C-alpha cells in the first residue's frame, strides 16, 4: 500500500545524513521560521539557494521524491488559484499600487502586484520543500525522539512522537483489516450510500479500531511502567550521537539565516516593494 511512501527514511552516505538528528531538527525549525517571517524576494531567493544546495549535498535523487513534488505543485497551484479567485487585489493591498496588465472579466484584473505577490508565495513553498523533504528522508526515525529531547522538549513528549511513528504502520494495518471485514459484512462507505448513512457506517469501522487502540495503550503503558519509565527527570538515549564540527557549522548557518531574515524584516519591512 501507500505506506512505504510516507515518512520514508532513505539511508545514504552523505554530509547531510551524517549530521546528528538534533542538528537537522534545529536547522529545520530555524529555516522554517526564517522563511515564514520574511516576504522579501531577495531573502527568499537566498534561502532557496541554501535549501537547493543542501538537497544536492544529500545525494537523494529527484525521482525518489517525485511523489511529494507533484503533490506539492498541485497544492500550490490550487492555493494560488483560490487566492486569485477570492481576492484578485491582495497584491494591490500589500504593495499600495495598481498596475493593470490586462482585464480578464468582471472584477478580475491581472495586475503586476498580484502576480508578484503570488510569485512570492510560490517561492516560499519552493524554499521550504527541499528542506522538508531532507528532514523526512535523511533523519533516522529512531533518532527523532532523542533529537526532540535535546532541543529542550520533555523526553516524555519525545517518546509520544516516537510511539506515534512506531505504531502508524500497525494501526494502518488494523484499519485495513477492520474495514475489509466490515465491508464483507456489507458496510459501505462509498458514494452509493447517503451521506449520513456513510457517517454512521464509519463508526462501525472506527469503534473496533479505537477499542484495539485503547488496549494497545494499556499494554504499552504497563510495559513501560514495569521498566521504570518516567521515574527520573532525565534519561540517556541509545541513538544520540556527539556533535561534530559540521553540526556546529550547520547550526550557525541556521541561526544566521534566521537572524538575516529578522533583521531585514525589521529594517526594510516584511515586503520588498519593486513598484514604488
Amino acid at each position, binding site marked *: *500500500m*501507500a505506506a512505504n511512501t510516507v*515518512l520514508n527514511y532513505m539511508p545514504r552516505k552523505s554530509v547531510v545524513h551524517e549530521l546528528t538528528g538534533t542538528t537537522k531538527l534545529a536547522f529545520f525549525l530555524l529555516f522554517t521560521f526564517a*522563511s515564514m517571517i520574511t*516576504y522579501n524576494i531577495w531573502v527568499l531567493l537566498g534561502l532557496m539557494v541554501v535549501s537547493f544546495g543542501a538537497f544536492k549535498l544529500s545525494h537523494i535523487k529527484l525521482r525518489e*521524491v517525485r*511523489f*511529494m513534488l507533484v*503533490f*506539492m505543485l498541485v*497544492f500550490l497551484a490550487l492555493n494560488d488559484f483560490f*487566492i486569485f*479567485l*477570492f*481576492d484578485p487585489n491582495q497584491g494591490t493591498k*500589500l504593495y499600495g499600487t495598481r498596475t493593470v496588465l490586462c482585464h480578464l472579466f468582471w472584477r478580475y484584473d491581472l495586475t503586476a502586484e498580484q502576480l508578484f505577490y503570488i510569485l512570492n508565495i510560490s517561492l*516560499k*513553498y519552493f524554499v*521550504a*520543500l527541499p*528542506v*522538508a*523533504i531532507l*528532514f*523526512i528522508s535523511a533523519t533516522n526515525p529512531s533518532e527523532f525522539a532523542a533529537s526532540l529531547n535535546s532541543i529542550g522538549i520533555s523526553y*516524555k*513528549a519525545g*517518546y*509520544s512522537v*516516537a*510511539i*506515534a511513528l512506531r*505504531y*502508524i504502520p500497525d*494501526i*494502518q494495518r488494523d*484499519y485495513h483489516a477492520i474495514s475489509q471485514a466490515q465491508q464483507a459484512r456489507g458496510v459501505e*462507505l462509498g*458514494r452509493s450510500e447517503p*451521506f*449520513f448513512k*456513510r*457517517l*454512521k457506517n*464509519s*463508526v462501525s469501522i*472506527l*469503534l473496533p*479500531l*479505537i*477499542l484495539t*487502540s485503547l488496549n*494497545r*495503550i*494499556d499494554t*504499552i*503503558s504497563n510495559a*513501560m511502567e514495569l521498566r521504570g519509565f*518516567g521515574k527520573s527527570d532525565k534519561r540517556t538515549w541509545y541513538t544520540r550521537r556527539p556533535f561534530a564540527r559540521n553540526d556546529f557549522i550547520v547550526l550557525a548557518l541556521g541561526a544566521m539565516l534566521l537572524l538575516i531574515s529578522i533583521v531585514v524584516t525589521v529594517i526594510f519591512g*516584511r515586503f520588498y516593494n519593486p513598484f514604488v
Partner: protein
Amino acid sequence: MKNNNIKTFVAVGIGAALFFVLGRFVAIPSPVPNTNISLQYAVLGLMAAMYGPVAGGLIGFIGHALIDLSWGGIPWWSWVIASAFTGVVVGLFAKKLNVQEGDFNKAKFAMFAVANLIAHAAAWIVVAPVLDILIYAEPVKKVFAQGAFAAVSNIITAVVVGGLLILAYTKTIAKKGSLDKE
C-alpha cells in the same frame, strides 16, 4: 497516579498515530465534490474527552504536523495549531464528561456536542484564519471562506461520528455500581 501520567503520554502517541492514519489514508467522500470527511477529528474529540487537554492538544499537534510532513511540505503551522487548539478545548471538558466512568447520559452527550462545536468554531473560524493572515499574509476573504467550510464539515464529523463513537464506547464499560448484591 504515576501510571496515569505514563498512560497519558502513551495515549498521545497512539492517538497521534490514529489521527495520522485516518487523516492521511482514509478517504470517505463528503457531499461537496473533491472533499473528504476528516474522520480524525471524531477520534481527536474522543481521545481529548478521555485524556484531557494536554493529551488532546498534543495529539492534534503531532498528528497534524506528521500528516503535513508526510505530504512532503513544511507543516502549515496555522492549521496545525488550530488542530491542537481543538484538542485542548474539548479536553477542558474531560473532567465533567468523565467518559471512563461509563454512564453517558443525554446531558453529557449534549455537553460533548457543545464542547466540539465551540472548539471547532473557534479553531477554524478564528484561530486558523487569523494565523494564516499573520504568518502567510493571505487574503482575508479566502482564509475565512476556507475556515468556515472546515468548521462546518468538522463540526458535523466530530459531533455525529464522535458522538456515536463515545456512546458506543461507554456502553462497553461496566458502570460504577452495576453489581447488585443478591
